[in-house]
């Protein structure tokens, strides 16, 4: 099961390395979003830590949806999903492998987005980096798990491009709220004086719950 999932994830990462179709689009989107909002909020005039945190998390979630829209594009091209469905592996491996690839894409995007966000919004007095990075990694897991399952669900729908955000964004609201709270909390006294541990715990719990839910349902949700 894990071996098959890793094999599928490896294929997806290899394809992206060769074709640069998904991550490149995600990078353009997230950079454009951060720069535009930077000017819109006049960050240099003091946008405030909560607005900056909210901006980062909104950009991450919308960028993730952009990537999820192409989560199964490689399988759709030549019907490779049929071969995966008929392979003697748990169907959860197809979902888990795709989710692992999505997680990787998000990490690459954030490696660019977070330093840019930092540079534009806080030349100094930024949040403590460790809680922000931890919150992003935990949220990436949740987005990848839930988003890939939703992408699989929407696969056969003609209105997939509309359906996927409708499915994913409501489920991502708790992640955004916890992520913003963790990021805001990482400002210390400036961020209200409460720590980021509570929201980080919530994000970890969210990941565990949706890992179990998605694992249990993916066998039935994938396919006809």
């Amino acid at each position, binding site marked *: 099961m894990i*071996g*098959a999932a890793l*094999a599928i994830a490896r*294929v997806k990462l*290899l*394809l992206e390395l*060769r*074709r640069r179709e998904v991550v490149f689009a995600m990078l353009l989107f997230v950079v454009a979003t951060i720069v535009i909002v930077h000017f819109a909020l006049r960050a240099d005039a003091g946008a405030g830590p909560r607005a900056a945190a909210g901006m980062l998390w909104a950009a991450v979630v919308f960028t993730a949806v952009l990537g999820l829209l192409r989560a199964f594009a*490689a*399988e759709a*091209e*030549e*019907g*490779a999903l*049929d*071969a*995966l*469905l*008929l*392979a*003697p*592996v*748990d169907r959860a491996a197809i979902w888990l492998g795709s989710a692992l690839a999505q997680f990787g894409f998000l990490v690459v995007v954030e490696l660019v987005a977070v330093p840019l966000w930092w540079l534009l919004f806080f030349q100094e007095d930024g949040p403590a980096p460790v809680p922000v990075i931890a919150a992003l990694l935990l949220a990436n897991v949740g987005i990848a798990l839930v988003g890939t399952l939703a992408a699989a669900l929407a696969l056969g729908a003609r209105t997939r491009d509309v359906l996927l955000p409708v499915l994913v964004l409501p489920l991502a609201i708790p992640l955004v709220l916890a992520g913003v709270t963790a990021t805001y909390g990482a400002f210390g006294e400036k961020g209200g004086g409460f720590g980021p541990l509570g929201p980080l715990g919530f994000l970890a719990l969210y990941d565990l719950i949706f890992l179990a839910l998605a694992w249990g349902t993916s066998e039935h949700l994938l*396919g*006809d």
Partner: protein
Amino acid sequence: MQAPAVSLEECSKRFGERLALRKATLAVAPGETVVLLGPNGAGKSTLLRLAAGLLRPTAGHARIDGVDASAAPRALRAGMAYAGHRSQLYRGLTAHENLALHARLHGRALDVDGALAAVGLADRADERIDGFSRGMLQRLALARATAHEPVLLLLDEPASGLDADGRALLDAVLAAGRGRRTQLVASHDHDLPDRLGARAVHLDGGRIA
């Protein structure tokens, strides 16, 4: 009495308003080769996808070895192969990488180089398949479908796009499998059943004639 390798009982499949297959009943014995013949839209592909478990019937039952095809356990899926209209391969991978993934998913050390050589693609093994012609994709799909030596082989118009050598290769693969595995093949080649000594089943308008 041995259960049929593939059986459809009063099997119907509806796509929206269109009834693609109407109360089809078919039993394929283990080791038997059956050729499905019929015009475009007759329901051949739908029947094959139901038999593979890739579609669930709207009514009736599709079974493999007596088990609901759409819920076939891993052990059953390990012994079957389906090649459809599309190659079911990853276009950004090489021919070798595609078959290596297939082997990995089957949890077996398959002779990937041998499988490629058998379909005449040994010298193209390390080329990405997005540059392959339709016929080459068909050859590679045939290699993928037979590399793990399935006991049930489902092929949907496998000759489309193949040149004369490719069609001869396909005939040889099907002839070699006759009696050794169950084969269900959709085709427009009305001579194929005679060439293979196989049973012909005619479909028209979603019905088995």
